[in-house]
């Protein structure tokens, strides 16, 4: 091996074998020998590359050149051109179907995609109503490992070191939250799974529960063990009947196998899960409102602190995590924190699931490593804008987030970068708008939603969102003046600063960000500005309000 410069990997998967890859390998060997290169180049038969439709596949290492549909006769060219002369054999390179561009390197092929599925790893692959299929793919091994080989501290440490942050919107480090809940002195503790998923346009949690409910059950048990809770609750909106029924089936099956219940894996840890239904209010996704709702009270938030980790369900320390957060836990335990933290950006590890919606071709769910750019998500994975129209903006973070414009599309996304460009990660809704969308109407749409969903407990939220909506309505009906724009902006900051919970603290974000990026579109609606609707420059000298607005 010492002298070997080049490895020629020939796919020996069933698919490629069926299309003569064995002969290809044999011919390569013969020709290499004939040219006297057997010391330098070695032919190796490998497992399947997963690209069978283009087989037989031959990959040259370390050049990382990838040849497709290689026939026995092509062996001569590969050896004479590539091995002897060091030139790529153009005609054997893979051609991308869309652009007919020839691609040699494996990473460059669209097929070796930008998506990596950790939370969605089993969705679409297993029958969610058959626990044995989950087990066949390594299910419940993480729980077994945690209970039989790891101390509670070690579990917490593993999750902490993985760098996993909450996928429900806040991005709080999960391991730290577990540690805080674990450190509380209490006989009784709870672990709650937040499956309220109130962000309009987001459905990743539903998809996980419908496609892979056991991953959440397993993770809750691991979390329960780590923090010292023997009781878990899944809080799920009643509007998700299929997710509920699959979750129920899954819980029943894990009880039958003793993976929930008393003395799991013969340890002294016992754990079981209950389901509580929500009526589908956005505010009930907020953890304190959620806990109130679980207790049968009105779904209204409480002031924090105390945090649920200190005083939660019925006053006991309670750890609330999101569905997707939980779905990441079993692979972290089995594969280790080092593996997980190798994916993503410096401060945001792992992957994030996004729900692509709006004016995008491939509407659906994607899961990408943190640090993927918005452009890659929207144009490469999402297939670009519908009807060949021009991209205008994308809203992340749902009604709590803001719009992101073209100039920021190359930002590698993570929790912090999205905040820095005036939006947020949120739960992963991603709504794409094209050139025909009016941004004032977009802001109005979100405000209508938050106005309806504001619970009414605090005045700033209850009255503020209503007034904001009214001003927006006045603007879009063409009756507003510059003074209204000023009021809109001032009130936005007021509501943001004085509301009780995250719902209304973030509700003005769509207004603030559209005003920042699409000021023209607001002006176009204003009647005392001297230009026709939708075009022209705003002449600041004519209107004294402008100075205030700029301030």
């Amino acid at each position, binding site marked *: 091996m010492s002298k070997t410069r080049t490895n020629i990997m020939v796919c020996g*998967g*069933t*698919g490629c074998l*069926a299309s003569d890859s064995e002969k290809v390998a044999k011919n390569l060997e013969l020709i290499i020998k004939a040219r006297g290169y057997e010391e330098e180049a070695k032919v190796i038969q490998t497992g*399947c590359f*997963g*690209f*069978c439709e283009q087989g037989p596949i031959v990959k040259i290492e370390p050049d990382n050149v990838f040849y497709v549909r290689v026939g026995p006769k092509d062996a001569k060219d590969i050896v004479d051109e590539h091995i002897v002369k060091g030139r790529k054999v153009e005609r054997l390179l893979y051609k991308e179907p869309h652009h007919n561009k020839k691609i040699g390197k494996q990473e460059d092929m*669209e*097929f*070796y*995609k*930008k*998506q*990596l*599925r950790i939370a*969605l*790893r*089993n*969705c*679409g*692959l*297993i029958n*969610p*109503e*058959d626990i*044995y*299929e989950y*087990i*066949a*793919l*390594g299910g*419940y*091994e993480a729980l*077994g490992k945690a209970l*039989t080989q790891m101390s509670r501290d070690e579990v917490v440490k593993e999750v902490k070191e993985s760098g996993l942050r909450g996928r429900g919107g806040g991005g709080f480090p999960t391991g730290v939250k577990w540690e805080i809940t674990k450190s509380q002195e209490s006989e009784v503790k709870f672990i709650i799974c937040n499956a309220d998923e109130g962000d309009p346009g987001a*459905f990743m949690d*539903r*998809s996980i529960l*419908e*496609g*892979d409910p056991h991953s959440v059950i397993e993770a809750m048990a691991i979390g329960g063990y780590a923090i010292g809770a023997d009781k878990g609750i899944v809080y799920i909106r009643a509007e*998700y009947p*299929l*997710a509920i029924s699959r979750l129920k089936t899954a819980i029943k099956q894990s009880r*039958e*196998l*003793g*993976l929930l219940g008393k003395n799991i*894996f*013969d340890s002294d840890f016992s754990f079981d899960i209950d389901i509580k239904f929500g009526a589908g209010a956005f505010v009930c996704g907020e953890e304190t409102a959620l806990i109130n709702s679980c207790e049968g009270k009105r779904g209204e938030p409480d002031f924090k602190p105390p945090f649920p980790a200190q005083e939660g369900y019925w006053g006991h320390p309670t750890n609330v995590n999101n569905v997707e957060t939980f779905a990441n836990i079993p*692979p972290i335990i089995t*594969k280790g924190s080092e593996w997980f933290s190798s994916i993503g950006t410096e401060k945001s590890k792992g992957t994030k699931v996004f729900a692509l919606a709006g004016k995008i071709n*491939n*509407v*659906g*769910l*994607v*899961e990408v490593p943190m640090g993927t750019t918005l452009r890659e998500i929207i144009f490469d*994975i999402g297939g670009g804008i519908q009807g060949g129209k021009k991209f205008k903006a994308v809203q992340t973070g749902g009604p709590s987030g803001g719009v992101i414009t073209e100039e920021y599309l190359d930002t590698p996304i993570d929790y912090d970068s999205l905040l820095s460009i005036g939006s947020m990660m949120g739960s992963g809704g991603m709504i794409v708008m094209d050139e025909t969308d009016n941004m004032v109407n977009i802001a109005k749409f979100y405000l209508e939603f938050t106005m309806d969903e504001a619970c009414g407990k605090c005045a700033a939220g209850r009255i503020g969102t209503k007034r904001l909506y009214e001003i927006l309505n006045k603007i879009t009906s063409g009756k507003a003046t510059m003074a209204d724009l000023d009021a809109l902006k001032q009130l936005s900051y007021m509501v943001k600063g004085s509301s009780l919970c995250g719902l209304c603290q973030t509700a003005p974000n769509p207004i603030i960000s559209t005003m920042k990026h699409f000021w023209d579109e607001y002006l176009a609606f204003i009647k005392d500005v001297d230009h026709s609707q939708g075009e022209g420059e705003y002449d600041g000298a004519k209107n004294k309000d402008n100075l205030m607005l700029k301030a």
Partner: protein
Amino acid sequence: MKVKSLDELKKIREESLEKVNLREKGDVKGDKVEILVGMSTCGISSGARETLTEFIEEIDKSKINNIKVVPVGCIGYCHSEPTVQVNIPGQKPILYGNVKKDKVHEIFEKHLQNGEVVENMVLDIDFERA
């Protein structure tokens, strides 16, 4: 039966492996063919249930007995629901999109009976699973 140890779990895994081996790699022996139908809310509302029923009826009619229809979760391709994956041993799994009830017969006849992939309905699987 209760699982009492990691070894017991691993034994169950070994025994169950056969159930899913075909899905990931296609790299297995035998003649068991699988049709996975995406049956989440989105798939069902686009007609996945009718699609699944239609496959079962086609199988019944044809009297072929090595094909299993498996309802699975969704892979997130809302733009192309219902989605159906055909797994035949020794071949790369093929994913079809927009498989409404009326497309079932074509896939069944061409792909499952004659081994011909229905190219115009094929979707790329554009992700890796951890």
